[in-house]
């Protein structure tokens, strides 16, 4: 992302006045972004990052945190939404924090993303095989079963998890636990 992609209202006016076309993705298109933030491995650093989002009114759709290969560094994977101007502000405000070591927006790069989901659903004799079929298609794992409920474990990109939950929604879902997205750039 470069400066030239960020449009302020003022610049839109200027473009309109000059008769230049304004692409919706210039500034208005709301897009989901996956941002990796490497921070000092302390609770304070984590809170400071989250606090910045709430203090400045930015969205957080999901956030995960865990220690990295370097035990003094934590990796936060943040999923946020906004137009390019907002995202640019998010990245700048993140970089500005003293505890952040590196900030990378993975969105326009080639990256792998995964999420873990545990889903508990009620079943009966009629629905049992259909539920297991869905699970089979999504390549989930049954991790617990009682006479009334089944618990599945599913890994994959967030979209797959959402599709799985959608499919299960026609049955009685008791509980859903999602880990939030983790992501890493591909080298291939």
């Amino acid at each position: 992302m470069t400066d030239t992609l960020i449009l302020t209202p003022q610049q839109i006016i200027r473009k309109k006045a000059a008769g230049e076309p304004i692409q919706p993705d210039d500034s208005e298109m709301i897009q989901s972004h996956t941002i990796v933030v490497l921070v000092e491995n302390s609770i304070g650093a984590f809170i400071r990052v989250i606090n910045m989002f709430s203090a400045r009114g930015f969205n957080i759709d999901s956030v995960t945190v865990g220690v990295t290969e370097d035990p003094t560094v934590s990796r936060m994977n943040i999923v946020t939404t906004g137009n390019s101007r907002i995202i640019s502000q998010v990245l700048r405000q993140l970089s500005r924090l003293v505890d952040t070591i590196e900030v990378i927006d993975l969105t326009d790069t080639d990256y792998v993303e995964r999420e873990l989901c545990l889903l508990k659903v009620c079943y009966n004799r009629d629905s049992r095989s259909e539920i297991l079929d869905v699970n089979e298609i999504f390549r989930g794992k049954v991790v617990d079963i009682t006479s009334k409920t089944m618990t599945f474990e599913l890994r994959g990109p967030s979209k797959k998890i959402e599709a799985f939950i959608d499919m299960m929604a026609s049955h009685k879902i008791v509980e859903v636990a999602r880990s939030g997205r983790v992501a890493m750039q591909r080298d291939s």
Partner: protein
Amino acid sequence: MTYDEHTKVHPVTTGDSLPEVRPEITSTSQMMSGAEILLRSLEAEGVKIMFGHPGGAVIKVYDEMHRINPEFQHILVRHEQGGTHAAEGYAKATGKVGTVLVTSGPGATNTVTGIADAYMDSVPIVVFTGQVPTGLIGNDAFQECDAVGITRSITKHSYLVRDIKDLARTVKEAYHIARTGRPGPVLVDLPKDVLLAEAPFQYPETVNMRGYAVPEAVRPEKLQRAARMIAESKRPLLYVGGGAVSSDASDSLTELARYTGIPVTTTLHGLGAFPEEDPLSLRMLGMHGTWWANQAVQHCDLIIAVGARFDDRVTGKLDSWAPHAKVIHIEIDQSCISKNVFADCAILGNVKTVLERLLPLLDPKDTTEWLEQIDVWRQECPLQYQKDDKLRAQGVIEKLRDKTGGDAVVITDVGQHQMWSAQYFRFLYSRTHITSGGLGTMGFGMPAAMGAAFGMREIGSSRPVVCISGDGGFVMNAQEMSVAAAHKLPIKLAVINNRFLGMVRQWQELFHMERYSHTDLSDTNPDFVKLAEAHHCVGLRANTPEEAKQIIDEAWEVTDRPVLMEFSVAKEEMVFPMVPAGAATGEMITDRMTPNSFV
């Protein structure tokens, strides 16, 4: 995706914009209490003055202070908020880092307004707060509060020191963070057991923070691009903010403006960065800026923003601000770039360094036609007020200006008098205008003036310190008068008394159908002369222009204590011109009808 300006560079370089650390390493193998380590660290950091208030959690620090008599002065303030504003005034007047020491709980919460003020106005201060012992944190102990949590979104950074081994390093880092890059407040929370523990003392020579980088290398291609934009522009305008003052770029800026012939307008915090008596000065822009500065903004084809952040009080309605202008933004804080106004060319770096490197790339420009046009606007709607036999705030400020010739450090509070000071004082020198701009803290003026006066004394400057305040704001921190008196600071305290919360009254009159809800202070104002006398200061009062001149002369005779001058002025006076909140910069209300809308 390349995000060069966002990606942190490491290993981190340590660029001090205001070096003041003493070079020698201080260390000893002898055991010291945490409290003494704190004091020795401050000595090593070159701290000369500290504003503080004792309490249970920091009693050990005060005990050690009594025992070892450190190389800096401790000023006992009468309210912790006053202490933080004093530290701000000191920092803004001298360019050094201000230091505050308070106890836990209420001591810490009382500093919150001052910290927020310093955060908004990028003032380098370090606030040390006491904390209950680490074992009691979270137990709702007596005088416990989560100081780090409370101040997280109003500090540049904050620390809770849990181990005495980290104490000296934390002090070093706190001062480094406060003074470098875009300056700001840093809070260090000190649990009592850490202050009581013992350890050998070693003050680190360098800081090593991988997450904190100060932009140093200015990218040459950006400078060339900026130079090209300046060469191509016909109606350029320098828009100068507080960054030019805090990086001490005044000389470089003045040289650049005069060499190229580009006119200069400043923000409230930029006042003094460029002499306002220079023909190229358009004075202040924005909500209460001059008509001609705002017209210049609306008609210029290039804005060169220098250490400014396009605040809403400057731009008004964003989408009609400077509609014809391309923008060059010289700024040290990356998060300010393209935040409100898109920067066609953003140069990240220390303002002074950037200006110094930009100047050789520039040529003198022929801006005659542009300056003539600005002069037309200057004649069209000059700054003016009714001159009759009544005492008016603007007249008082002009009299203070005459008395000092502009060679004074002027501290203002918040409200109408603040805007009149900005409009009528005509500032000439950098660091001679100190005010609460971003947060707009009433009660800032008096203690900040005290801090500035200590700063002037420390650097051996004979520049008088003048505090211009309203009757509403003055009483909010009036208690610090006795501290200034105890230290024989000859501060001139001008209280512009209109017996109203004037700025709110102005909005009520203009936008709320003259419903003056709870802005009349005539019943609750103290007798200011007696208030001054009760605080061991001299109190004087003036009701007419003649008396005003007389008491100003009288006040300047007093050299051993503060003098409060109460100027009783008309309550109906309003600050004009004015861009109503949310309106376009071209739509100004003047004391007569706006001559024309040029936009």
